[in-house]
């Protein structure tokens, strides 16, 4: 794979300046409050954009755009759910959390109890959720570096891991915040530019190039394929498919369809790993093999629309016909074949929910099939305000008013970005730049869209995508570092440490977590990024949301109730995920039909379970006297809690 020197140059400038700024700003953070909470001195606007930089991960930028480009509306459902979660964060969590905590959200939960159980369970929950969330980020980094710099996946993962660890170790939350601020600003600005360019360009009709056809009937030299479909599907080999060996030895796959025999665009992987496209060796003749999605027919049959407004763009896509491809996999004597069958989709079917494998249950009449969707939307709604790496950002500002204002600034930036994702995704789909044969392309929709405009834009968007990973990963490592150094070592194990030692402990933990993240990113490179993020939201919401909400709104909550709710929520959601068909298929390599869990997203069961456990355990462990410490009402007497977690 050849690399573009311009892309490498722009990439180095971006990463170099981000690192430079982090070093420059990081000189200040010497004590624990500087390292873990940026001294609480970050201006609210910077913090707000840093929220966006922290939150808009590789899954948002790359995953959602890719999902919209491949399946239409369903990707936008993630955008809506991811944004809705911020409503919970702003209206319910932000101000009390700021008032009650100091460095971590375990501080806030533990504010009125001084319970080691809460400290430990909240810290473990932070650690596990952060690690879970780290996997898709690292996988995304590997996927990005490959086409951009030509490095293999593993090098990409190691590169991100190393850079982020340097950022975090340099100055903890100060440098992390500014990296996220820069990244958040760049992401929103350049996605806006890209969207304007999409609208200015308008839409073009590009009918698919005609496929070679033969009269029906088995041609001379053709042999029926002994097809072996993948284990998941019923074992019926397509009877109308034929392998035809060309004079030059290339094997083409043909199918009988509509009274004709047509050649299929195929990707064949031989036993030795060598790949052939449409019968040609990899890279020899890419032009004959271009199954890219595009607009096949515009409304009224026009060739192009010219510049469009934001509304008319959507309406035009809706009334167009889109050329898409469905993949069919089978094994033949020459190797594993993926055949891309052309498929025309009406825009009206594309811009409604239920088109992707993730959400196809929506269109099923069975109630349990719909539960996956409802459960995921619930997890996204409740998960945002339960993500430790988001919550720690409330401790970098001065007070509750700043927490409130920075959340609103964050919501504005994030909401605007999510509106853009729809245009970026549809732009990538209609541009003819998205080659569906490369699975990693589902994560590359936005950069490839930029490439269809020009090289500079491609280089910039790719570099921004890379800094996107950097920003989110540094936030996650910070959260994990705080959980171990502050919650577990200082508060749970009661290790006596000077302020300076505590910072060093935090840095050491950051290095260890960074190394674990690199290993996970290499081990799980086949997993789909946005799917994993959905799971992380499920775990976060199940473990943390019941504790946060009930602490704020129910006087009778006890420390045992909180500890039990976090533990049960964490264990139940993780156990469920390990029993889903996706875990069977990708993690254990077992037939997915053997999976025990009836659906993939546990939130709809495990979030209420956390609430029930908290209520039951709290009632069972109720203090004897009525005005025991449990009677402290957070909302009514905020000034009491505002002293921090001091007791």
């Amino acid at each position: 794979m050849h690399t573009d020197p311009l892309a490498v140059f722009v990439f180095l400038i971006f990463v170099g300046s981000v690192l430079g700024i982090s070093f420059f700003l990081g000189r200040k953070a010497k004590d624990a409050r500087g390292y873990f909470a940026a001294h609480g001195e970050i201006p609210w606007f910077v913090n707000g954009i840093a929220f966006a930089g922290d939150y808009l991960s590789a899954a948002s930028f790359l995953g959602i755009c890719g999902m919209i480009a491949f399946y239409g509306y369903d990707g936008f459902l993630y955008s809506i759910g991811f944004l809705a979660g911020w409503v919970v964060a702003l209206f319910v969590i932000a101000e009390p959390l700021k008032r009650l905590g100091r460095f971590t959200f375990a501080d806030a939960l533990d504010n009125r109890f001084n319970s080691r159980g809460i400290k430990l369970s909240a810290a473990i929950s932070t650690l596990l959720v952060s690690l879970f969330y780290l996997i898709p980020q690292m996988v995304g980094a590997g996927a990005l570096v490959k086409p951009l710099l030509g490095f293999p996946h593993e090098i990409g993962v190691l590169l991100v891991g190393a850079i982020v660890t340097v950022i975090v170790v340099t100055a903890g939350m100060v440098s992390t915040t500014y990296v996220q601020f820069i990244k958040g600003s760049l992401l929103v600005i350049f996605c806006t530019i890209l969207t304007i360019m999409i609208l200015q360009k308008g839409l073009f009709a590009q009918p698919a190039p005609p496929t070679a056809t033969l009269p029906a009937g088995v041609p001379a030299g053709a042999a029926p394929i002994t097809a072996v479909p993948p284990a998941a599907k019923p074992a019926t080999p397509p009877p109308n498919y034929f392998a035809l060996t060309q004079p030059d030895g290339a094997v083409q796959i043909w199918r009988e369809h509509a009274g004709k025999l047509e050649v299929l665009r195929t990707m064949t992987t031989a036993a030795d790993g060598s790949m052939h496209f449409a019968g040609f060796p990899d890279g020899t003749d890419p032009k004959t093999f271009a199954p890219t999605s595009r607009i096949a027919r515009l409304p009224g049959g026009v060739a192009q629309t010219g510049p469009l407004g934001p509304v008319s763009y959507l309406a035009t896509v809706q009334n167009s016909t889109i050329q898409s491809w469905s993949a069919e996999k089978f094994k033949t004597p020459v190797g594993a074949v993926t055949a891309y069958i052309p498929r025309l989709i009406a825009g009206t079917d594309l811009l409604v929910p239920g088109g992707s494998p993730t959400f196809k249950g929506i269109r099923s009449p069975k109630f349990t099939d719909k539960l996956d969707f409802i459960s995921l939307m619930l997890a996204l709604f409740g998960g945002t305000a339960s993500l430790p790496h988001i919550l720690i950002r409330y401790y970098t500002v001065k007070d509750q008013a700043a927490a409130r204002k920075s959340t609103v600034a964050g919501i504005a930036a994030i909401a605007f970005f999510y509106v853009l994702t729809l245009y970026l995704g549809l732009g990538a789909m209609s541009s003819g730049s998205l080659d569906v044969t490369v699975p990693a392309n589902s994560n590359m929709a936005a950069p490839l869209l930029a490439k269809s405009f020009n090289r500079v834009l491609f280089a910039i968007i790719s570099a921004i995508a890379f800094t996107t990973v950097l920003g989110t990963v540094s936030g996650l490592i910070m959260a994990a570092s705080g959980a171990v150094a502050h919650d577990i070592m200082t508060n749970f194990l009661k290790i006596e440490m000077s302020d300076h030692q505590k910072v060093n402990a935090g840095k050491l933990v950051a290095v260890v977590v960074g190394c674990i993240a690199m290993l996970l990113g290499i081990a799980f490179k086949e997993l789909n990024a946005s799917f994993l993020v959905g799971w992380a939201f499920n775990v976060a919401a199940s473990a943390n949301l019941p504790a946060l909400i009930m602490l704020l709104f129910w006087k009778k909550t006890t420390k045992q109730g909180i500890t039990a709710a976090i533990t049960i929520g964490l264990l139940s959601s993780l156990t469920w995920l390990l029993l889903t068909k996706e875990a069977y298929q990708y993690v254990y390599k077992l037939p997915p039909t053997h999976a025990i869990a009836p659906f993939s997203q546990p939130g709809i069961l495990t979030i209420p379970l956390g609430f029930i456990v908290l209520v039951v355990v709290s009632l069972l462990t109720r203090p004897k006297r009525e005005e025991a410490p449990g009677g402290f009402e957070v909302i009514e007497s905020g000034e009491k809690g505002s002293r921090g977690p001091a007791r």
Partner: protein
Amino acid sequence: MSSQFPPDGPAPEPDSAIAASHITRNARYGIVLFLIYLAFYAGFVGLNAFAPERMKAPVPWLGGVNFAIAFGMGLIILALILAAIYLLLCRGSVEAPGEGEE
């Protein structure tokens, strides 16, 4: 534990009834706005889950884009509007000393 706090710890808010009622008021505004949004979000999820065909209908006064896109975009815009209202409501209340500056 309090001895571990550096002198530049979080600024304590005044021990006054004004500050307490002020926080209560913000929290109440928050809950009301949250419930409004929750109703729309639940409606959106419910419609998608149980009447996905209905999402296909074009909305004539929005250039003919379908209901799925109109509702989805509407939810994003609603979040922004409610956030702005919340900010205004909280600003209207008496800012306790040390409660940020505009």
